[in-house]
């Protein structure tokens, strides 16, 4: 079996703690918990399956996966069914599939493939082309509109650029350009997205409207204190004050019931997993594997940072779940798939070496 024990250990701890939090957040509903467990089981078997495939195969598939993903994204925009007021799904009869999830893996794969047989650091022309590769799916996803996922996709893409050795001057230029463009993008945001940004800047502006989420989650976390109110003892989430407390805002339940200590433990587990992924990237022997592993590690980090940043009021509210803890979410499958690929990179390396 091609599996990585340190990663398995980290994921196991995370999922265990996640289930404890979810049990409380879901109002002690066993049905809730078993549905989550079933989903996790499915995602884990996909992870194990993907870990058995050598990285060379991923390299061969990369351009095709990307092309299919972009075509599906366009298809979603054209004929997607309405899900929660936004077009993200492709109805395949038996289940609904989100092409944007596929892109989270396919984009870093494509860029890693693109740079793998070219001399590094990349030339300006190559960087320009790679930026187009990144912006095309990110724009399509943002149009759905799913800002959170668009940020995650673009973040994973730019991470590959960074690791490929793009010069600091150029990186600085790109960042400045993006910051300069950001105010312009105000015109392209949907009304509710603008609300979120305004609310982020001043939550008290509309405490019963769009500021409600942030205020309530800060009360929940802040009232938890150093050691928390104890498992199942949270009042904010249990009295229904805290909206979406089992999905995107589940960290508030953790903060309320387990306090700062719980938060530090959870973040330590995340940090452990991320560091192990980076270690896998350093040890990888070919450019493709390195770039891909590094990018997947950063994507995972982005989930954690954006979610906890949002729930604790550091960042605006964007729909990003807390990875492997939030209830449901198609992102769980994608995340576990990326760990499968990381395990494949780590374990097949040994075979090549020996």
């Amino acid at each position: 079996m091609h599996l990585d024990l340190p990663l398995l250990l980290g994921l196991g701890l995370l999922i265990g703690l996640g289930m404890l939090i979810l049990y409380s957040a879901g109002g002690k509903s066993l049905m809730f918990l078993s549905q989550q467990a079933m989903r996790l089981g499915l995602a884990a078997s996909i992870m194990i399956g993907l870990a058995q495939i050598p990285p060379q195969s991923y390299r061969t598939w990369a351009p095709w996966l990307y092309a299919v993903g972009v075509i599906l994204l366009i298809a979603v925009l054209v004929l997607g069914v309405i899900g929660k007021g936004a077009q993200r799904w492709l109805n395949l009869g038996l289940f609904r599939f989100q092409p944007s999830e596929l892109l989270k893996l396919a984009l870093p794969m494509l860029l890693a493939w693109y740079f793998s047989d070219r001399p590094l650091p990349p030339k300006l022309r190559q960087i320009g082309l790679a930026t187009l590769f990144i912006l095309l799916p990110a724009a399509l996803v943002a149009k759905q509109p799913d800002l959170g996922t668009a940020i995650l996709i673009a973040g994973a893409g730019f991470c590959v650029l960074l690791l490929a050795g793009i010069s600091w001057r150029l990186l600085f230029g790109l960042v400045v350009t993006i910051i300069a463009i950001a105010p312009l993008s105000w015109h392209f945001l949907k009304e509710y997205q603008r609300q979120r940004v305004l609310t982020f800047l001043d939550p008290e502006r509309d405490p019963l409207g769009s500021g409600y989420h942030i205020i309530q989650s800060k009360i929940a976390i802040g009232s938890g204190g150093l050691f928390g109110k104890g498992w199942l003892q949270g009042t904010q989430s249990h009295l229904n004050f805290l909206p979406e407390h089992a999905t995107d805002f589940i960290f508030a339940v953790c903060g309320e019931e387990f306090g700062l200590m719980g938060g530090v433990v959870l973040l330590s587990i995340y940090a452990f997993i991320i560091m192990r992924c980076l270690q896998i990237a350093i040890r990888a022997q070919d450019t493709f594997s390195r770039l891909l592993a590094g990018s997947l590690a950063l994507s995972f980090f982005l989930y954690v940072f954006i979610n906890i940043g949002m729930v604790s009021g550091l960042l605006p509210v964007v729909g990003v779940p807390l990875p492997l803890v939030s209830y449901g979410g198609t992102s769980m499958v994608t995340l576990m798939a990326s760990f499968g690929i990381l395990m494949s990179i780590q374990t097949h390396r040994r075979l090549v070496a020996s």
Partner: protein
Amino acid sequence: MGMKKKITLTNPSQESRRFSRRIWLLGISLLTLILILVLRLAYLQIFRHERYTTLAQKNQLALVPITPSRGLIYDRNGILLAENIPVTSLELIPDKIDDLDVTIEELKKIIDIDEDELEQFNKLLNQRRSFDSIPIKVKLTKEEEAAFYINQYRFPGVTIQAHLIRHYLFGEALSPVLGYVGRINQQELAQVDPGNYRPTDYIGKVGIEKYYEPILHGTAGNEQVEIDASGRAVRTLKRVPAIAGQNLYLTIDSKLQQVAIETLAEKRGAVVAIQPGTGQVLALVSNPSYDSNLFVKGISAKDFKKLRESPEQPLYNRALRGQYPPASTIKPFIALQGLATETVTPEDKIFDPGWFKLPNSTHLYRDWKKIGHGWVNLSDSIIESCDTYFYNLAHEMGITEINTILAKFGFGSKTGIDMGEELGGVLPSPAWKKRYRGAAWYPGDTLITSIGQGFMVTTPLQLANAVATLAMQGKGYKPYLLLKSKPIGAGAIFHQPVPLEPITLPEDDWRLVLKAMQEVIESPKGTGYVRFGAKPGYTVGAKTGTAQVFSIKQNERIASQDILPERLRDHSVFIAFAPVKDPKIALAILVENSTLAPAIARKILDFYLLNNDENNPRDPQ
């Protein structure tokens, strides 16, 4: 680390070193960012802890959902069929109760809670969150309410809540149309917006209640309230009112529906009546039936089992899902194609000795009349229901022509009625038989199909709609149940009839066949003359049918049905439309193991066409 433009060759070791450096840098940045998160949490949870604790304790905001009131359902004349009545229910919030079992035991001492209610409660307990309010007994009496209020201090976490629940005014008579609502389950919750349904609890499960759920339900509102530490609302800060569901007016004439079900009495069967020229369904009856009200509170497993396993099959909607041989009622349709293809002329006669024989075969296809009908033409064959004439016509015309005309009248495919539960029947063809029976089509199959037996089956709804199209000389409509819907505070939305592809046949052919159907009732030779009864006071076109359930020898009929056990006796089928010119009603009746369909039709038509002088006109438009 600046990019050196002159290097064009790949330098693996340099590349690898640069990569490692950047990974290290990335790792350190990520750890720093995680540290920022920790600092943020520390700020909230240590430095601001007291402030947030105060906020959590005294200034709690809660979002209290407001249930929308479900749309009412009326019949075409504005008679109320489904309403919402206020009831009080005893509810428990598990989170606020120390020992659930003890509490329930104590409650039982003052309020009667039976096994079914406990079972229902335990089921909900597993599905709901522990801070939800879960009903244990619905519809409390005034005495029970009083008994609880006196003892309320002993039961923290137990409350009495007022709700509106669905009530069906006509119980069994309308259940085949209305269906019922019941408590929403997990699968259903996954298909709707849970925020909109959380406060409602109920969802349409069957029938109109299910089909028109999206417009009946309405939109939940909410109230943002400030509450004190004990969870009591102190004041309302913001209110988004609920939007009530739309009221529906059905095409059903509830009085006609009741007459039909009363006339069927103990008999198993179905009646479908349609207004030709619009496709409005006036009655859709399946008997025996069930009381929709049983399901609203949540039916007990025992009661449900009783309904499900009853040999009378009350849960089976015969009008939409019952698939029966149409028997001889199919003959007028086939006769039309015989004329249209010029396979026969109105004058052509055949001699019926009581049987038909295919060339080069010795097998006898028998007529229901053993001694035969003698010389018959097309009209006679409909009036007397002569099987031999149709064996001969079918043999000459072939199965393809039979299929063509029957498909045009909608046999073999769903009508598309706005109910969603119907079955499509079977219009057999050589291709159908090969696919589903894995056998070749024999000439004999064609003959049997021409008298509506063999593989051919149809639902009463399909048959009624075909009769409506026939009565209108080919100008058919899609049958529908929703006459108009009325959103709160807005004008009614009328639902327009949807014409079907018209069936164009020579005018003379229509007139001949419709006249023959009138003779079925008026001519002393007609098969309906005695059984429908004479001189109805209006003109009526009809056709009788006897669907074989059991035969002792293939293709042979039994002299006396009375010697058979009831369940093996033939079904009685009857189609009719009236008045013949400008028809107002078309119907199909099927009565299982009986001969009574024509007599039942007479009572229904008499009521519909002769009771018009009451204060209650049958059709106000």
